[in-house]
């Protein structure tokens, strides 16, 4: 569903992403791990069509800048940016109108209820705490029922309830056949559900690890530290 081929993103001479190859299938949760500055956010923004790059990125076979690809894509950015003068309900309404969604109201209500925002519908974007803004951002991304969801540090700023609900939503999306690419520093938060992990170091994918690759008793955290502390070897996906 999400396919990244020989993707390179440079800022001047610095290669923030260097020849990245990555793919996430339907019903698969791919996790992007890596230390600060590894290039995870750059990769995610490039996949969402927010940055220029060299190489090819497709969503269900459609080049990522096409209208068809955008229709399939949901994105939760690292920093939730809401419209300060729109209410929570209007954010969902705006997405619904802009995406030409039909009968979206019930779905919107359910999302708001799930993230305990149903009593905040009339609150303006600027009146919300960062955690609340993150929840609205998640609701906006999920309202069009995308088939490929990309999340950049989605758990940062959420309260324990929000974290639990988002983890449940991620699991449900995966079970319903959605392709998920999630970047996070909180390894333990994805430990239960991940299918494939891409560990990035200095703009490159240093290791691709499938759940089946783990040795008995080995955790994702063990793999991560082995790679990031320089003991791992490069593995082409």
């Amino acid at each position: 569903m999400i396919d990244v081929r020989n993707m390179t993103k440079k800022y001047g001479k610095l290669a923030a992403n260097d020849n990245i190859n990555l793919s996430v299938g339907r019903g698969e949760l791919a996790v992007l791990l890596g230390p600060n500055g590894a290039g995870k956010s750059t990769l995610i923004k490039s996949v969402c069509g927010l940055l220029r790059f060299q190489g090819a990125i497709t969503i269900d076979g459609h080049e990522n800048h096409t209208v068809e690809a955008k229709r399939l894509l949901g994105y939760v950015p690292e920093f939730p940016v809401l419209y300060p003068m729109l209410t929570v309900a209007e954010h969902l309404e705006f997405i619904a109108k802009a995406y030409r969604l039909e009968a979206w109201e019930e779905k919107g209500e359910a999302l708001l209820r799930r993230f305990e925002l149903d009593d905040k519908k009339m609150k303006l974007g600027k009146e919300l705490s960062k955690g609340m803004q993150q929840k609205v951002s998640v609701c906006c991304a999920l309202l069009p029922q995308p088939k490929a969801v990309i999340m950049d540090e989605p758990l940062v700023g959420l309260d324990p309830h929000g974290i639990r609900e988002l983890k449940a939503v991620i699991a449900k999306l995966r079970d319903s056949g959605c392709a998920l690419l999630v970047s996070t520093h909180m390894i333990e938060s994805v430990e239960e559900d991940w299918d494939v992990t891409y560990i990035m170091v200095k703009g490159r994918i240093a290791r691709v690890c499938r759940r089946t690759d783990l040795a008995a008793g080995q955790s994702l955290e063990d793999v991560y530290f082995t790679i990031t502390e320089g003991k791992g070897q490069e593995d082409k996906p």
Partner: protein
Amino acid sequence: MNSLVFLLVKSAKNTLLELRRKPAKLALWVLVIAGIGGIFLLSLFTRQSAAGSLDLVWLKGILFLLILLFVVLAIQKGLANGDAIFDMNDVNLLFVSPVSSRLILMYGIVRMAKTAFLAGFFILFQSNSLSTGFGVGFDAVLLVLLGFMLAVGVLQILSLLIYSLTNGKPGRKLVVRILAVAAFLPLLVYTGVQIAGTGALLPALENTLRSPLTDWTPVAGWASAGAVSLISGDTGSGFLFFGLLVLSGALLVLYIALSNPDYYEDVLVATETAFERKRVLAEGQINPEASSAKKVKVVKTGIGGLGPSAIFYKHLRESFRANRLGLWGVSSVILVLGAALFSLFQRGGDGRILILLQILMWMQIFMIGTGRGLKELYIHYLYLIPESSFQKIVWSNLEIVFKVLVESLVVFGIAGLIMEEPLWLVAEAIAVYTLFSFLLLGINYLSLRWTGADISAGLLVFIYTIAVIVIMLPGLIAATVLGSMVEGTGVLIGLGVLALWELLAAVGCFALSKGVLHNSDMPVLRTGK
């Protein structure tokens, strides 16, 4: 070396060294300095011939009003959360260090001078206007800048003191408000009496500006009277008023340092607020409404439109919620009032509306960025909406097009009436101004498309400004040449040619920036240190 001196010297040194690593920033500074130098040289040659048409008393009035604006802002800030004279790194590292809090306050005030200078930087570029308007040279510009910097410096300390004295004390806040009004009340009453006496606005304003009441009005009066006295050669009065500013600043600092050595708590809120503002900007929230403390009442709700048109209806909802006048906020009111005031001064001459047009076009180069359409580029939703890029851009900018069209109708309509300009001239001024705004939008997108937005915001603004000049030049030359070839209706033809060029150039810019949403990085506002 004293730790605070080390910090100041090291920061200044590193700022210079940074320029070596960032050639674009260095080029920008070189150009700015060259520009100021060029203006200085130009003023040396043109000074003798520049016979100013306006009395210096009006310069005093303009400076007074400008500083008055800063006085109001300083009092408002003081009553809210004070002025930020420190950064978060000062709070985190200096405030907890074993360095005297009084010395740290001095350090903050020394650094504050830089802020005051930057706030008045635009004054350096007013040499030509001051020379044409008042027949003064570059030395006068420096004196105006000095007066402005002194006033801003005093106001920053005043703001800090107001916060320190009134924080959490509504009674004291009321006293400050009453004192603030009382300081300007005599002048207000005097102006009223003058208007009633003379029956005309301009003579009344002139009498007020010439009265000692204006000169002795705190901060705004002292700074404006000091600068204008020195410009007109009255050094005694000049030094007296500037001395008053320095003395009052020193007394305020002394009061804070002696009375409240534990002022850290008082500056913390302002510093944290300023830091939070920068952080939010860096995270992509460039909408100033996000950090506004203004209470907004949600009455009507809902978003109209479908597909890309939803962006336009969203803008309408946001604008009408942000202020009652909707698309036309306080800035539009100031624009109309300013243009009307300018027209009053310029009444009587032929074609004076063209001077207004020229000024507004210069302002519009930088004001166009305040539209919601260009701000959308900093938020991901615009890129992700599954619709054609072209349609998204068109609907996204419809709001600013409406705003400018109505603004220009009102501004030039009123100006035309006051200046008694012919209807065709007013109509052409409206067309030139509106189409110029349309062109500016096109150039904005073209600059983004060409640079890929992979550069700093400062450099992007620089490239955009150069692009505006380069693109407008052929139109201006054609308008001047064709206009001068025909007697009588030359201005009509010249403006018509200019409007046509703006339209063609705008269409060209939009066509060349096709696919801008796919071919440039989503811009990020880098807020620096």
